């Protein structure tokens, strides 16, 4: 009796299996729709992009003019300010901000994981709140401080790249500290105790034992910080007031926000803005996902 039972079960199994794949495929299409529409629009010429009824169709002739305008801008009407300046501003901002906040996070994580003092957990929790803070609630004092900083110190923070770096470093400390603390906490303390008996001090334990083991945590934090600083809009739009300092997201919003810029140029600009974090995701996705998990507090 086993044989007929089996043969009747097999097709059903295949049928649900097929449904399962169809369902997953449907969702994959949904997730890829914006990518499709961005690619279709950005490789079209302006004349072709104007034919709205063809917006879901691929371009007849593959063109790169829209990327050229999106990057360099255009003086002929409709005059457009390109992404180029914003791109380099973001590069100049994201590199120091990522490196500094990662280093601070690493040393903070070391202290909070392996040198717990009384009240360390409270301080850690107070730090963590910074990860969830709605920045609107600190924005007015931040702008006031930045605008008046030069008066007292001679250092210009408002609407400068270093000013944006400072903001991203400070508000990046909580997440960087969290990831490193959780990473160091799972390293065996016995290893450190052994080194201590051999006379290693606070700094040599960090340099000789933890630092060489930290490479995975560094990759995770660097990717996380790079992505979130590159993608930031709020600090960029509030703490910068000239295209000379605008990060790329603000440049993109200005291109896309002015309704006279044709769609093919808007989409090309969106693609260029998304590209650096997307490349990181494609090549280092594993570490990217680990950062996402850490962002939910689970180590």
């Amino acid at each position, binding site marked *: 009796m086993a044989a007929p039972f089996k043969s009747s079960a097999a097709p059903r199994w295949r049928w649900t299996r097929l449904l399962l794949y169809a369902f997953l495929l449907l969702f994959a299409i949904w997730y890829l729709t914006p990518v499709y529409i961005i690619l279709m629009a950005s490789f079209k010429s302006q004349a072709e992009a104007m034919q709205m009824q063809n917006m879901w169709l691929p371009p007849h002739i593959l063109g790169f003019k829209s990327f050229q305008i999106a990057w360099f801008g255009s003086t002929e009407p409709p005059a457009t300010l390109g992404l180029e300046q914003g791109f380099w501003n973001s590069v100049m901002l994201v590199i120091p901000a990522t490196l500094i906040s990662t280093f601070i996070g690493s040393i903070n994580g070391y202290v909070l994981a392996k040198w717990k003092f009384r009240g360390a957990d409270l301080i850690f929790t107070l730090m963590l*709140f910074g990860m969830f803070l709605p920045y609107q*609630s*600190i924005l007015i004092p931040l702008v006031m401080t930045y605008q008046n900083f030069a008066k007292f110190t001679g250092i210009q923070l408002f609407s400068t790249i270093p000013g944006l770096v400072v903001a991203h470093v400070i508000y990046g400390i909580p997440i960087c500290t969290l990831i490193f603390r959780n990473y160091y906490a799972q390293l065996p303390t016995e290893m450190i105790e052994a080194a201590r008996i051999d006379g290693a001090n606070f700094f040599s334990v960090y340099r000789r034992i933890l630092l060489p083991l930290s490479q995975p945590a560094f990759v995770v934090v660097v990717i996380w910080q790079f992505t979130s600083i590159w993608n930031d809009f709020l600090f960029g739009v509030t703490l910068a007031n000239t295209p000379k300092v605008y990060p790329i997201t603000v440049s993109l919003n200005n291109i896309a926000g002015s309704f006279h810029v044709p769609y093919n140029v808007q989409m090309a600009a969106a693609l260029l803005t*998304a590209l650096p974090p997307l490349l990181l995701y*494609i090549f280092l996705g594993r570490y990217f996902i680990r950062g996402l998990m850490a962002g939910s507090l689970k180590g």
Partner: protein
Amino acid sequence: MSSTFESAAGVAVVNMPKKRWWRRQNWERIVSILILMPSIIALAIFIYAFIGWTGFISLTAWNSSVPDFTFVGLKNYARLFVGGSTDMIRFHYDIRNEVGFLILFVGGCIIIGFLLATLLDRKIRGESIFRSIFLFPMAISFIVTGVAWRWILTPGTQETGWVGINLLLTNLGLDHLRSAWFTDPTVLYIQPTTPLGQFLGSIGLGALAAPDFGYAVAMTSIVIAAGWQMSGYTMALYLAGIRSIPDELREAARIDGASEWGVYRYIIIPLLRPVTLTVVVILAHIALKIFDLVYSMTGGVSAGFATDVPALNMWKTTFDGTQFAQGASIAIILLLMVGVLIVPYLVWQTRQEAQ
């Protein structure tokens, strides 16, 4: 406390004269705290002092470009809740939009994320490709998401031709599904003249039958774009949770005669409760803070404030309208909403870790 140097102390004492050891131990302790100090001071100022400063500004009369620190008490807050000013109407709509957005966004992400995670857990060929496709939107800026989805959801018109999704729907013959998307000023609410509205009126809840307690249809577009970006992340959290449940547990349930549905109902879903809590807290706080996406999708303006949200209102009121005290009061309310959600969660997490 086993992960600290307290445990090392007992060993070290043996090898070193007591006094010298104490001196070294104390010196290093001081160094460790000194190293942490710059971060503690920076965050104390840039988070906590600034919050206090914002709170102070919210109690002043500084509602023009010239700073004015005259104390006015809770006047700025009161204006958001009562009095019938445009500020009040706008803020009421903000809360309405925020609540609708939060429920649909969090609920949608959980349903889609959980569904995709359970499907991907069924030994799928090409699982990693599907996973990558579902998760890549997380790597992208909300501004890019907003620009792309604005283009897809641009409604177009009958005269100039339909655009985006409306164009697809028209070509598929699904004309009745066309929508004005994020430009739709429609607000669904209980009309006072309907039986339900009259019933609410008769039990003294007539106030609920008003646009303040409705749902602005335009928020659906924001939900779609935000859900597109965050549902893959929800999937990843659930998938990690499902994978951490030992196979033996499921096997044992199956041997005991549980159906596939029963395994989910009695084993997997209950064990995923902590993941669900994390997901709800993370997504809800993102929903409360939503700003960039709405800003880039709608340009920050909407007919009848149909897509206005508190974070956007705060930014517009403060930096476009130079009403600093009014903006500060919105910021504080936003902070309180996030705090009510996050503080218990952080306390719970810290306690759980301590155990």
